[in-house]
């Protein structure tokens, strides 16, 4: 190959390599930017008076005096709204039956939409679910709901060959000629006076329990559950993994048995996590009966089995990369093998072992499948440390899935889901970052 072609090859390879890294970077950005912006929005947002009322009622937080004052201002406009409603209701009574029926069928949805927007209307039985006790707590959402209040969504099926089309019909036009027609412009104009949006920093999102399955409140039970599960998995897997790695590298004699063990370990590392989940259910809960049903303990054990191969491998690599000369030096000073391992080999291998451990910890925190059957519940309060042996727990990974797919009001609480995703990503990144720092510190200490 002549010099020219070689240079061209080199250059094109550089371009391809650089290009693929750039594509990866962009993809990461595309994924991360919405996660970060939306996730941050779960703590920093424009909150309404309804949000402040909710915090006061459910968590006893907030300034009573101010709240009373604010409420009084809001109430002025509310009363006018309620007045319009009752005026229309009286008007209905004067109509003939057919007309009344027609208006009633249109009036129902209007009331529902209004209720969603500003909270319960007078004269209704008190709601059982907390979600019906408040109007919109976030101004962004309130604006969406305002639109739904002002316009009815309809679908155009006229063209049979195409997808049906969405179009909006102003509700005001439907009540043309009645007293209710004033309601719509009034609400549109005075919604801010009723809901009183204000910039809100809600750290409680991270430290509060959820209220009415995540419609309100925070994600502390999930964060704590994730922490319990991951740390629990580490408690089992880390010591076991390091011991196994020491066995493989220092004690095992090359042979049939040993090579079987090694390949079993490699195979285990490649098993899909859902299989571990089922295994955990079948083995830890049904066979060993470590707990009556789902529990943090069972989940931790399952996660431990899942991350064990990774920890073993990382520890093995780390131990093998310790210079043989350290071992020779120690043994030549009259040290026993055990002592050599404990005082020379493991300390020198520590950075690598810790890195492997923390990466596994991140994986344990992020996995969903292993805990579905063994530990996770979708809604629950934070459990005490003493309950880990018997109680299941909510966890970030599982609840993200749950909010995305199974939650009955998933569309209403996207911000909670984003908040959970950002929390989980932050936890995992933080763990990895701390691993890098710890590793650097220990390496520096070892290098002098």
């Amino acid at each position, binding site marked *: 190959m002549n010099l020219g072609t070689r240079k061209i090859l080199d250059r094109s390879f550089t371009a391809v390599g650089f290009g693929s890294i750039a594509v990866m970077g962009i993809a990461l950005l595309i994924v991360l930017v919405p996660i970060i912006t939306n996730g941050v929005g779960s703590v920093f947002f424009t909150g309404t008076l309804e949000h402040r009322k909710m915090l006061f009622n459910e968590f006893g937080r907030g300034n009573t005096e101010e709240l009373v004052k604010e409420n009084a201002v809001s109430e002025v406009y509310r009363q006018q709204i309620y007045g319009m409603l009752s005026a229309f209701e009286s008007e209905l009574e004067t109509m003939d039956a057919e007309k009344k029926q027609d208006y009633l069928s249109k009036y129902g949805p209007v009331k529902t939409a209004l209720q969603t927007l500003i909270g319960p209307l007078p004269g209704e039985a008190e709601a059982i679910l907390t979600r019906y006790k408040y109007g919109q707590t976030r101004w962004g959402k309130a604006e969406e709901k305002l639109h739904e209040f002002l316009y009815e969504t309809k679908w155009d099926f006229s063209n049979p060959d195409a997808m049906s089309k969405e179009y909006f019909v102003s509700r005001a036009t439907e009540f043309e000629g009645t007293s209710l027609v004033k309601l719509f412009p009034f609400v549109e104009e005075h919604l801010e006076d009723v809901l009183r949006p204000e910039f809100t920093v809600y750290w409680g999102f991270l430290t509060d329990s959820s209220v009415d399955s995540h419609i309100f409140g925070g994600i502390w039970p999930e964060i704590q559950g994730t922490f319990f599960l991951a740390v629990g998995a580490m408690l089992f897997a880390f010591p076991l993994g390091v011991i196994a790695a020491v066995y493989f590298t220092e004690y095992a004699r090359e042979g049939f048995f040993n090579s079987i063990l090694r390949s079993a370990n490699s195979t285990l590392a490649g098993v899909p996590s859902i299989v571990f989940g089922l295994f955990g259910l079948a083995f830890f809960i049904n066979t060993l009966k470590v707990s009556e049903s789902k529990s943090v303990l069972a989940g931790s054990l399952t996660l431990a089995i899942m991350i064990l191969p990774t920890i073993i491998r990382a520890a093995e690599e780390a131990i093998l990369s310790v210079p043989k*000369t350290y*071992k*020779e*030096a120690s043994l030549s*000073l009259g*040290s026993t093998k055990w002592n050599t391992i404990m005082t020379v080999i493991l300390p020198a291998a520590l950075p690598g072992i810790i890195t492997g451990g923390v990466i596994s910890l991140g994986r344990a925190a992020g996995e969903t499948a292993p805990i579905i059957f063994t530990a996770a519940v979708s809604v629950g309060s934070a459990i005490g440390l003493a309950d880990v042996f018997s109680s299941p727990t909510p966890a970030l990974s599982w609840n993200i899935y749950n909010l995305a797919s199974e939650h009955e009001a998933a569309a209403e609480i996207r911000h909670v889901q984003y908040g959970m995703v950002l929390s989980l990503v932050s936890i995992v990144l933080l763990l990895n970052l701390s691993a890098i720092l710890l590793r650097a510190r220990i390496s520096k200490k070892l290098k002098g």
Partner: protein
Amino acid sequence: MHMTADAREVSTSASGATATRDIYLPSERKIISGGGTPHVVAKDFSIYYGEFEAVKKVNADILSKYVTAIIGPSGCGKSTYLRAINRMNDLIPSCHTTGALLFDGEDIYGKFTDEVLLRKKIGMVFQKPNPFPKSIFDNIAYGPRLHGINDKKQLSEIVERSLRKAALWDEVSDRLDKNALGLSGGQQQRLCVARTLAVEPEILLLDEPTSALDPKATAKIEDLIQELRGSYTIMIVTHNMQQASRVSDYTMFFYEGVLVEYAPTAQLFTNPKDRMTEDYITGRFS
């Protein structure tokens, strides 16, 4: 054929007699009182790597408190022989031995020999300096701590004494808590000697201790060996003929696993009995 490095019994002699003899030394070297008894004795001692016989039927007495050099071309089994003495070869699974190797009359490879205790009495310094990635103090204190000394004051004494013996004290006394890997190669090697001395061995095995060092550091190690002569039985593997003649009282010449000649150093270098030895020391092969 049993070899004792002796003026009157040279390698070519067929007699296996081991009567007490005068110890032949170059004129400027002092006879060590209380030294010269057989410390490590090999009897038909062979070392194998699997099927391969790396050291072949060696018979030799290593005399206590003197310095014995081991020379020979690369791959002739010098390291293998040296490492056999404190059983460092145990680390190589395929390695096994036949014959007998005695230390103070006890079989080193005996069934009931405790190799950990043995290594405490027979220290080793390796070709490449290998301090632990710990502080200078902790490096030296490593051995004593292993053997149960935990008293801070006592440890400090041992560290100072060992470093002084290794002629390193003046250079490092003000930075004992610094990582040993920050020392120069020569200092690291002397640190390794000090670390070995700290467990108070009887025998010091040195496997090419200066091959990774510059001439100045080499000179320091050689001086150190002279200092330690008379207190420890020292065996040193070297490729440097000048070094062997400078530091040792006796010299063993190995060739392809066979101990060809074992004699007082001056005699071996000035008047070799074996043709092969002569060829090697005159540089006809290496």
